[in-house]
Structure formats: C-alpha cells, structure tokens
C-alpha cells in the first residue's frame, strides 16, 4: 500500500474533526445559555463548523439545498440538543495537545484559520465585490487537512521540511513527494466524502493551487489570497511558514496591488481583537485541541 493509500485509509475512518470546545461545553451546561454566543463560537472553530455541516448535509436536516455556512446550519437546527451533539462529536475521537506533525499548538491552528476566514471576507469588502456568504466558512475550514494529517496520521514533518528546504520546493509540493498527497487535497477529499457542498470542498482542495481548478471561482480566489495574507500577517504560523506560492493569475483577476493588501492586513489585524477572547479560551493548557 502506498503512503497515499495508507493516509486515505486512515482518514476514511475519521468521523469528526477535533475542536476547541471548552467554552462551548461550558455554555451548553448553562440552562440560560445564549444560543447566539454558542453560534459565535461554532462559526469561528473549524472543527465544530465542519462537524455541523457534515451532520446537516448528511440527511434529514439538509432539505433540497446543501448548506455551506455554519450560521445557516445553526438557524436550520436551532436547538441546543443538536448543537450539543455536534460539539460532543468534536471531543470524542481524539485528544491531542497539538497538531504534532505540523508543530502547531491547537490555539495556533484556530488563530490561523480564523485569520484566513477574516482576510478572505475583508479582501472582498475592500475590493468592493459581492463576497459569497460561504467565503468565511471556506477560509475557516481550508486548513482542515492539516488537522487530519497531524492528529490522525501523525505525520512526521521533518522529512517534508528538509525536502522543501533542500530541493527548493513549496511545502505542499514537498508533502506531495513525501506523502503522495498534500494537506489541501486531503482536506478537500475528506470533506467531499462527508457530503459537504462542492462550493466549499473545491475551495479547500484548490486553495493553495487555484490555477489547477477548472474554471474561475471568486470564493476560491478570495480564500487563496486570504491564506496568503494570514501567513504574511503571521498569526499561528507553523513550520511551513510562508513557503507557498501566490497565484499570479488570481492576483491579476482581482487586480491586487500592494496597497490593497496593506489595507486588508491592517483591517484584519484590527478585527482580530474582537475574537481574541475565543483564542484565549483555546489556550494549550485549557483545551485538548
């Protein structure tokens, strides 16, 4: 069995993405819990969002149209019991202190994911385009493949990093060579198998290499640059650092300039202050991931 097949077989058994649930659990145990606050936590947590979308799109909750934002799903479900189920699925499968393979503390992955999501949405606002509703969610879950590789496959990052540095490869190219798959492709495939809509899974799959996507998709473009911005801003960086390519085609399509990116970065850093309390709740000593 190749390394790629081995990885795909392992993640096929994964039923839920681990998440930072300390605060969510505390809220659920409170009879006067504010559903709005719970929604805010879920909306900013990649694991909880993915688990929720998996459940709503799986069967009887879904209806005719697939759902691609946490907010939509929460409105549709609307009961604390169902949300409790979603959250409990997030804690059950694995307790890990950090994403070992990627040298990421749990709060760092959360911070990075939220920054990608905020940057994608803010970029759309600054460009004055009509940003699709699911752009935030797509950005938030774009790095879910790293959680899978780190928490379930326990990938050893050192040969990947060494190969990238020695051969001058981008981190995802080095993943391809060592593992037979990169974290973006893996994340997209798993979410696809979980029944999440293509408008999300395509973004996850192609967010590092948008030029390989067949066609044009504004959300993909926004998330690709959102991910670049989050890495440049430097929130929650892992050992892969900034070792990824920026698509020139996307930059041209969006008419990006350094000035536009500077404005978006400044706005995102300012906005991060408003969600800082969530990151604090997910500090390493209080949260299992």
């Amino acid at each position, binding site marked *: 069995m190749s390394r790629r097949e081995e990885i795909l077989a392992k993640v096929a058994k994964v039923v839920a993405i681990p998440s930072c649930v300390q605060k969510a659990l505390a809220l659920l145990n409170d009879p006067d819990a504010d559903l709005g606050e719970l929604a805010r936590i879920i909306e900013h947590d990649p694991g909880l969002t993915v688990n929720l979308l998996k459940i709503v799109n799986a069967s009887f909750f879904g209806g005719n149209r697939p759902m691609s934002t946490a907010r939509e799903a929460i409105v549709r479900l609307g009961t604390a019991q169902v949300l409790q189920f979603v959250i409990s699925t997030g804690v059950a499968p694995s307790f890990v202190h950090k994403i070992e393979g990627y040298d990421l503390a749990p709060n760092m992955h959360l911070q990075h994911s939220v920054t990608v999501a905020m940057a994608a949405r803010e970029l759309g606002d600054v460009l004055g385009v009509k940003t699709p509703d699911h752009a935030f969610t797509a950005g938030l879950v774009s790095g879910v493949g790293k959680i899978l590789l780190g928490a379930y496959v326990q990938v050893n990052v050192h040969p990947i990093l060494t190969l990238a540095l020695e051969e001058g490869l981008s981190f995802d190219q080095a993943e391809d060579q060592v593992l037979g798959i990169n974290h973006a492709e893996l994340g997209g495939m798993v979410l696809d198998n979980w029944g999440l809509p293509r408008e999300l899974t395509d973004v996850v799959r192609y967010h590092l290499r948008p030029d390989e996507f067949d066609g044009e998709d504004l959300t993909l473009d926004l998330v690709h640059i959102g991910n670049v911005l989050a890495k*440049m801003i430097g929130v929650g960086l892992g050992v892969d650092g*900034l070792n990824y390519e920026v698509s020139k085609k996307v930059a041209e399509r969006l008419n990006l300039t350094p000035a536009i990116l500077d404005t978006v*970065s*400044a706005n995102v*850093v300012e906005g991060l202050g408003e969600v800082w309390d969530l990151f604090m709740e997910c500090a390493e000593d209080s949260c299992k991931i």
Partner: protein
Amino acid sequence: MSLHVVNISDMKFSDQPEDVIVTYSLGSCLGVTVYDPEAGIGGMIHCLLPTASSARDKARTNPFMFVNTGVAMMVRKLMDAGAIKHRLVFKAAGGANMRNDNLFNTGARNFESLEKLLARNGIDLTASDVGGTIPRTVFLHLDTGRVVVRSLGEEKEL
C-alpha cells in the same frame, strides 16, 4: 524573570535586567529591538506594514502598526525613560515573504522602510535576520541586550 509578549502592531520596553521581551510568529512583519547597554533599557516592536500610506487612519490609533511611525515612537519612549540616542543598538528580524513573491513583497518593503528610517537618522543596524519564507520568534534579554532568534526549532544569537 518576567516575560513581556509583544503582539502584532505592539511595542513593549523595560529597564528590569531580569525581564525578557518576546514576539512570536513573525511572518512578513518586522520585529525591531533597541537597547541602550549603559542604561540597561530596551524595547521591541512588531510592525505589520512599512508605512501608513494605505491605512492612514490607523497611524493615529496605533502607530506601532507601521515601521516608520512605530520605530520612531519606540525610540522616543526609550529616551523618555532614560536611554541616550547615540548608545542605542538596533537589531531586526522577520520580514519573510511568500515563496517567489514579486507581487507584494511585504516583508522586503518592511525592511526597506526600516533601512530608510535609520539612514535618515544616521544610525547603523547592528544585526539582522530577515527574508526567506521562514517564521521567526525573537527574544530580547534585558540583562545584556542579547537578541535571540528562534526558527524551525533552532535558536541563534543576533
């Protein structure tokens, strides 16, 4: 020892020899340390952008967001606390760029902005560890002014 953490667009300084100032996870941002060895006063800033030209309103609310306004303000604060300008030792780390990025160059632009500011004031940069695609964490030890850069699990002194 107390550890003072410098966030993005933030600055901390101290004159306590047991203190250490740190900033984590520098991407394209630039970390700049300034230390007066005689007074034992030192500071560190974590700047997001080279200048405020694309976000003018934010230069008023947070001058530490930008290299040109932030570093100048840090030096003023250190001098108010007793540091003397000609004794100050400047070091810098960070300023990484995305791979093959010749579109935005935020890291390179941040470092250029610092070089320009220092040149205008006739100040030399004593040491720097900038560029590439790697993330960096920087420590300033107030007892000696030692600056340590940690990246990919390895530490080196600047």
